């Protein structure tokens, strides 16, 4: 019996190249079978729904999740409240506004821009420390430690604690992982434990920052006195956990997918070596071509809505397959070609609407810098395995390892 398209997306065998499945999906802009989620895969429909106030991100509005393989297990009372990713306005807007206060304009316009030289130093240090150029795991040696270090510095998490929250973050990311063979109860429990431990760790850190505030985000969130007032401790905890995990699990994939794509397009890599500015359009095209968040599985309808003639009932679970919309030939000419020179790259890679990626400017800067420096410094880099081994996760999709080799490291 043929697998449903939904299960094909989740099937690990398709992780290295899900795009043919998306192409199948797009034949019906609204895909729905067997009581499962409604899957939207075409560009314009996804974009519309991301701006549609009849769509909720709050799991409490879901009628039933029993047939949704990406549904989160019910949280226990003691667990952290949902981060703003899973809230609707006005709570979402208030939390996001408060979180943005120490991070970006209008209150902190120079935070990200001011990290440029620090980012550069971190990148240089990691490339300097690569060691044997004959066998490099780019994930382990570069794309993972880079954003982790950055998010630590931004939040004010001590570097020596990195290993601990590494484990928690991995577990939490895996809980979004739709491994159909895994026991959902076990998966839920592991995630719950990780969330609790991370929460306790952060609670201690927040207490410490309240006593001795620094200029890091956590200190400023803990001591904020803006128009929206201070965050409660629980809000602060869930926000910090959200930033930490999002900061961990997405940029690593963007950088790894980026280097993988460049190694598959050596002519672009060559151009980047001599023209570091090319990293700017390369990163935008990457966000279209290999977005680190492939789909948004956590939306639901507040009313019966009609999408391209299909009625999606109130309370239904929606999946918005961003990565498929990005390859929609109705929107992008020759969508399966990686082409940083296409003038028109209005991708869905970072979402759109009120939930668009909070860390987007940082992810952009990190990836631009990472790719241009890797291109400049690695001599004759090449893939040792193609495709590389992928992580299980179909939502936050990316290689588990990226084994590459090069002839040497330029100074």
């Amino acid at each position, binding site marked *: 019996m043929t697998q449903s398209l939904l299960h094909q997306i989740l099937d690990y065998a398709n992780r290295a190249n899900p795009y043919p499945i998306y192409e199948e999906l797009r034949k019906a802009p609204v895909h729905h079978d067997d009581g499962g989620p409604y899957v939207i895969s075409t560009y314009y429909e996804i974009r519309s729904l991301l701006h549609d106030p009849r769509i909720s991100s709050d799991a409490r509005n879901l009628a039933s999740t029993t047939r949704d393989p990406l549904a989160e297990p019910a949280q226990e009372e003691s667990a952290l409240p949902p981060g703003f990713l899973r809230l609707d306005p006005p709570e979402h807007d208030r939390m996001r*506004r408060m979180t943005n206060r120490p991070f*970006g*304009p*209008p209150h902190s*316009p*120079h935070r*990200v*821009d001011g990290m440029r030289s620090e980012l550069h130093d971190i990148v240089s240090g990691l490339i300097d420390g690569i060691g044997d150029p004959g066998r490099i795991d780019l994930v382990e040696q570069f794309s993972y430690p880079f954003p982790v270090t950055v998010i630590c510095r931004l939040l004010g998490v001590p570097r020596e604690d990195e290993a601990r929250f590494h484990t928690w973050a991995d577990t939490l990311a895996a809980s979004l992982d739709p491994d159909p063979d895994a026991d959902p109860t076990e998966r839920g429990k592991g995630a719950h434990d990780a969330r609790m431990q991370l929460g306790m760790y952060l609670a201690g850190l927040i207490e410490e920052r309240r006593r001795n505030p620094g200029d890091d985000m956590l200190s400023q969130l803990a001591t904020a006195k803006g128009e929206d007032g201070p965050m409660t401790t629980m809000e602060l905890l869930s926000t910090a956990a959200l930033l930490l995990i999002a900061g961990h699990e997405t940029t690593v994939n963007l950088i790894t997918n980026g280097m993988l794509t460049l190694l598959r397009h050596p002519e672009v890599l060559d151009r980047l070596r001599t023209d570091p*500015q090319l990293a*700017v*359009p390369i990163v*935008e095209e990457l966000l279209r071509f290999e977005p680190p968040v492939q789909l948004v599985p956590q939306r639901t309808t507040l009313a019966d809505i009609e999408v391209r003639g299909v009625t999606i009932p109130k309370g239904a679970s929606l999946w918005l397959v961003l990565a498929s919309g990005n390859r929609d030939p109705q929107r992008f000419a020759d969508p399966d070609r990686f082409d940083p020179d296409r003038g*028109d*790259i*209005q991708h869905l890679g*970072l979402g*759109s609407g009120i939930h*668009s990626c909070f860390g*987007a*400017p940082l992810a*952009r*800067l990190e990836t*631009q810098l990472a790719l241009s420096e890797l291109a400049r410094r690695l001599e004759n880099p090449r893939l040792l395995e193609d495709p590389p081994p992928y992580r299980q996760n179909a939502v936050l999709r990316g290689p588990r390892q990226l084994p590459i080799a090069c002839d040497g490291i330029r100074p």
Partner: protein
Amino acid sequence: MVRIAVDLNRCQGYAQCAFLAPEIFAMHGEEALLYDPEADEAQRAKLAQAAAACPVQAILVDAVDVPAEAVSGAR
């Protein structure tokens, strides 16, 4: 100098430009954007970053290859 205009009908306040080139772009409140309509040539790299990052592609910048055109009242 580089001339800049922003199509504020398209702008939805994602603020990517204000993060990446704060010398030129600033948020005025949560959603309104103010920008310097003219930037130093030295800002061109950051400006390119800001323009490329705009999710709604609202930022218009002088094309690099437009030759200086004599603009005067003379015939």
